[in-house]
C-alpha cells in the first residue's frame, strides 16, 4: 500500500484514504464548436502512460475530500512530490524532486 502525503492535510496517509483520478494537467480544448474529432479523442482518450515519472491527480476522499496532484515514478511507485491543484508541475530539479535513494522492488 502506498503512503501518500496530502498537500492540504500535510500528513502522510495510507493509500486507502485516496482515490486515483487519472493523469494531471490535461487541458480541455475549446471552444467546443471548433474542436476537431482528433482533438476530442486526444483530450478524452490518449494518454502518455509513461514508464517513469507521471503527473497524476489524486483525491483525498476519506480525508479532506480535495483533489491534488502528484508526481510519481511508475517503475518504483515512489512519490516524488505532491502539490495542490492549480500549481504547476514541479521541475525535475526542484527540492523534494530528487531521486529516491532506495527503490522499492
Amino acid at each position: 500500500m502506498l503512503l501518500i502525503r496530502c498537500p492540504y492535510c500535510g500528513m502522510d496517509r495510507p493509500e486507502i484514504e485516496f482515490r486515483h483520478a487519472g493523469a494531471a494537467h490535461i487541458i480541455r480544448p475549446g471552444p467546443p464548436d471548433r474542436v476537431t474529432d482528433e482533438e476530442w479523442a486526444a483530450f478524452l482518450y490518449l494518454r502518455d502512460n509513461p514508464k517513469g515519472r507521471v503527473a497524476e491527480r489524486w483525491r483525498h476522499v476519506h480525508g479532506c475530500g480535495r483533489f491534488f496532484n502528484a508526481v510519481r515514478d511508475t517503475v518504483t511507485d515512489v512519490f516524488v512530490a505532491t502539490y495542490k491543484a492549480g500549481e504547476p508541475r514541479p521541475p525535475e530539479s526542484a527540492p523534494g524532486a530528487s531521486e529516491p535513494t532506495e527503490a522499492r522492488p
Partner: protein
Amino acid sequence: MKFSLFSLLHQGLTGNQGWQPQWRDPAPKPAYDVIIVGAGGHGLATAYYLAKEHGIRNVAVLEKGWLGGGNTGRNTTIIRSNYLWEESEALYEHSVKLWETLSHELNYNVMHSPRGVMMLAHSVHDVQVTKRHIHANRLAGIDNEWLTPEQAKEFCPILNISRDIRYPILGAALQRRGGVARHDAVAWGYARGADRLGVDILQNCEVTAIRRDASGRVTGVETTRGPIAARKVGVVAAGHTSVVMGMAGIRMPLESFPLQALVSEPVKPVMPCVVMSNTIHAYMSQSDKGELVIGAGTDQYTSYSQTGGLHISQHTLDAICELFPMTRRLRMLRNWGGIVDVTPDRSPIIGRTPVPGLYVNCGWGTGGFKATPGSGHVFAATIARDEPHPIAAPFTLERFTTGRLIDEAAAAAVAH
C-alpha cells in the same frame, strides 16, 4: 519431434535421454519480412498463424525477457466468450472455438479444460444484467444459461448460497464451454509450432527504437542485439505497448495498471468449475496441481512495477472467504502482479496504425488470456493482408476518434 504415445513410451524406456529443445535460440538475422514485438501468447500465436496460414515464414518474434514471462505466465487462465456486444462475442467466440482444437493443432497439450465458467449475481441489478447477457449470448449462438442459487450450488458444491451473507447469491450465469487452460503450455506450444515453421524467436532482445524512412514508413527496429530490418512490425507488448508505440511517435488510448493474482496451497479436488463475481471482485478456480487460483481487481493507479497493494488481495480474499467458507483455513502460497494495458472502453485494439507498416494488438486489459488463439489469428491476417480481418475490423484505433466504442466496461465490470 512429434509428441505421441509412442514417443512418450520410447523416451520412458530409454531413460528420457532423447528429448530435444523445443525451439531454437537463433542469432538475429539482419532482416525479416515481419517482426513481432513481444513473445507472449498473443505475439507467438500471431507468428504461428503468419507462418501457418499466410505462408510468411521469415518472421522474428522479439522478446525483451523470456517468452511467456509477462502476463501470459501471470494470469488466472480463464476462457469464456459470454461478452455482451456483438463485436466482442464474435472475437471471443472465435477464440473459444480455436481453443477447442488447439492441442491437436499444435501437437502440444495445452490442457484446455472446458469445465464451465459461472458468473454470480448478487443483487436485483446483477440479475437483470446477467439475464441480459444470457439472452444476448444465446441470440449470437453462444451457450449461456441461468442457474438458480440451488442449481449453482449443485454445479459448484463449495458455494455458500445462504441468504444472510453480505452479498447473497441470487443466481448465476453458466457458460459450460468456458473453462481454463495451462497458460505456460499455450506460450510453449505456439513457440514450438512457430519455430518449426521457421520463425526466429529472439529472447533477451529488447526493442529500443523503431526505424522509419523519409515517407514515414517502418523500415525496422533497433534492439539490444543490434538493428533488424523489416517492412512490417507488429507490436504485441501488452502493458508496455505505450512505451513501444511512443518510439514511433504514437500516443495510445491506454493506461497500464497492476493486476494481482494469488494461489493457495494445493488441496484435493474441491472445485469443478470457474466461479467469478464481478460485483465483489473475485474469481477462483482450481489448477490441476490442486492450488486454488484466485484473481482480484486492478490496483487504482498506473504502474509498471508488476506489484500492487496487499489490500487489493485482502479485499478479494474477504469475498472469497464469504463465497467459499471452506477456504477460510487455507494458506496462500504466493501472490504476484502483472501489468495490464487498459483501454477506455475495455475492448482491445487490433489493427493498422497511422504509421505505414506498423500494426498493433493491445488493450486486452484484464482479460487477454482467453483471446490468445483468436487474437493471434485475426492479427496475423491483418498484418499479412494489410487490411483488418473482418472480426478485428471494429477494434481499430480509429474508433476513439469516430466514437464507435465497444463499451464492455459497463457490460463486464472489472473482471474478465
